[in-house]
């Protein structure tokens, strides 16, 4: 059965209105006969039929406007001419009209709503190279005053700030600094939430053996050398990272760049509010005693505001512990450009069954926030399991 379609009568025609039929059902038609008149934007046009036979059925009434390609009539072809049946174009469907010729331009994509500026922070007026250097040096641009045109912060401004910063802390009044820090942390956290697809995992780790070992160990140590359990957690995380390098590094300019060294950033809350996460360099290669000393030193200098800029810029992963604040599990926000964050909650007594016996064990909840662009839950789970295993042999840490 041949189909008589609303023809394409011009490069920019998408639909046509049937004015009148010149034949009716049952009439015989020859190839080339004019069997209908169609109105287009330009003019009324006589439409020829391309097959020879009798009109089986008229489908469209005069006055109807239909898209190009719509089947308007069915023609029962009689003894096909020698050249054979013109196979109807394969994609022809029975009833529905063929797609219009000029594809409508796709509806404009909903303009992604630009996220509100982080916490109402005023947009910084800073040159791209200055912004990049500030980021590299871990200096918060909000703390620099610009000398460029329109008080734009220039490269030289950042370089000058970097020198003075490491020499002595810029004498910024305490409150003002905390407010600025809150602003900077807010901006970083907002960006992290916006850009990094986080996934979260948690597990409970039996700390009994580690804490027992710690108590024994501290008996042998003088007061100044005593270890806090946090150090064991840090060392376990650092050692576990050796087996899961993808969690240890950055995600910059669209691609993951794992880092060879393990510098665990430790989240330290500052008196009077604010938080910094400076790095313990080569955490995995320090012994527990040495790690304890650098940890104590880091906390004191963080709180005194005399951290070195490299310590701020270097962490390849961050560990945060809110156990003392009574929090059982913490699902933190990754510090960009890092790709993972480990959280520890408080140590609690909890009934644990092993080999059919239920005993009270002291356990801690360890959590992992991971960047799904870089790693997935499967690897994250194996990492937490490795941390747990390491904590079962505290003497090996």
């Amino acid at each position, binding site marked *: 059965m041949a189909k008589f*379609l609303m023809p*394409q009568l011009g*490069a920019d025609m998408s639909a046509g209105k049937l004015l009148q039929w010149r034949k009716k059902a049952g009439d015989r038609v020859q190839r080339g006969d004019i069997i209908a008149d169609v109105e287009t934007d330009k*003019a009324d046009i006589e439409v020829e039929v*391309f097959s020879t036979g009798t009109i089986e059925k008229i489908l469209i009434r005069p006055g109807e406007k239909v898209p190009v390609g719509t089947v308007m009539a069915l023609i029962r072809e009689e003894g096909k001419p*020698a050249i*054979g049946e013109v196979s109807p*174009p394969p994609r022809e469907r029975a009833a529905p009209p063929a797609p219009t010729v000029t594809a409508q331009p796709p509806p404009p994509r909903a303009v992604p709503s630009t996220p509100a500026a982080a916490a109402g922070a005023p947009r910084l007026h800073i040159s791209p190279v200055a912004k990049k250097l500030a980021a590299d040096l871990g200096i918060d641009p909000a703390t620099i005053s610009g000398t460029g045109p329109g008080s734009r912060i220039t490269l030289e401004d950042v370089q000058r700030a970097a020198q003075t910063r490491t020499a002595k802390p810029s004498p910024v009044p305490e409150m003002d600094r905390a407010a600025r820090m809150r602003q900077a942390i807010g901006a970083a956290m907002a960006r992290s939430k916006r850009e990094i697809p986080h996934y979260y995992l948690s597990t409970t780790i039996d700390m009994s053996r580690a804490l027992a070992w710690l108590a024994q160990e501290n008996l042998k140590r003088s007061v100044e050398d005593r270890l806090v359990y946090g150090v064991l957690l840090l060392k376990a995380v650092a050692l576990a990272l050796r087996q899961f390098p993808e969690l240890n590094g950055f995600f910059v300019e669209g691609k993951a760049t794992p880092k060879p060294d393990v510098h665990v950033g430790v989240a330290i809350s500052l008196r009077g509010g604010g938080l910094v996460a400076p790095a313990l360099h080569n955490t995995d290669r320090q012994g527990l005693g040495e790690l304890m000393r650098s940890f104590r030193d880091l906390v004191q200098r963080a709180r005194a505001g005399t951290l070195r800029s490299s310590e701020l810029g270097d962490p390849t992963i961050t560990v945060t512990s809110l156990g003392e604040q009574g929090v059982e599990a913490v699902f933190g926000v990754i510090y960009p450009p890092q790709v993972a964050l480990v959280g520890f909650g408080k140590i609690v007594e909890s009934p644990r069954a092993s080999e059919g016996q239920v005993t009270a064990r002291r356990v801690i909840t360890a959590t992992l926030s991971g960047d799904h662009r870089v790693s997935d839950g499967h690897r994250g789970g194996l990492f937490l399991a490795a941390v747990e295993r390491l904590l079962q042999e505290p003497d090996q840490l």
Partner: protein
Amino acid sequence: MSAPDISARPLVDRDHAVFLLREMLRIRRFEEKAAEMYSLQKIHGFLHLYIGEEATGVGAMQAFTQQDAIVATYREHGHALARGMPANVLMAEMFGKATGCSHGHGGSMHFFDASRRFYGGYAIVGGGLPIAAGLALADKMQKRQAITGCYFGDGAVAEGEFHESLNLAALWKLPIVFLCENNLYAMGTALERHQAQTDISRKASSYGLPSSAVDGMDVLAVEVSTRQAADFVRGGNGPYLLECRTYRFRAHSMSDPDLYRTKEEIENWKKRDPIMLFEAKLRELGLLTPSDLAPIESEVGAEIEEAIRFAEASPREPIEDLLKDVGGQPAR
């Protein structure tokens, strides 16, 4: 140099006559199928049909050898077929396929075939004439035994490039046969409404070119006149302008509602359909019997049908090759 006597009819041998008839029929059926494919949205953009002018295209092409160069216009399907380009690569080109004669880059208005020195269709009216001058200049400077056939329509005579090219060709005695296919209309504007001097062949005299006009509906007359023009040019006497007076039975293009001429005028010209005229003459000369026609029709039909299948089945050019044939790129 008086105009050659075009009334003398050569003694026509049967094989050549049937060949001419078959070539015109190939063009006619190809164009009808192209119109159908356009209405089925297989062919897009512009499509200019040659129905009615077949005698000019086929007749004139007989005067050119394989070594000669041919320059055509956007109404070029007939010229391409008459020049020997297979129907399937032309249909594939209009389907935008990689197997098309221009890899799907040119479409209906831009067929090219370097192996047959078919230097293509030009969409800018008159754009081909300077190119033809250059091709002839190159042949002449390299002492190649070749001339250039340059087809163009009556619309082109209004373009500066027509006058510049004819003058340059005459000045430098370039071996070109300028073939004006005067179909009486420059798109929607009749000849007398776009030319002060409507006898186009006379325009050549202002540049010192010999010229003549011929009935573009008589395939034999066109062949004879073109051969005489070509012989003149091959003799190193410079260019020649031959005006073929013909008519197109269809609108300028598929987008043209064809309102600028009356139905009666079209019907009148259809009475001199070049294929019907030639069929009748051959029967009159006893060179054609009614039973000869059917096999020709089915042979031509099969060729056109195969062209459609080839075009449908052909692949599209991969996007990775987008910049492949673009010159001036930085060195990879």
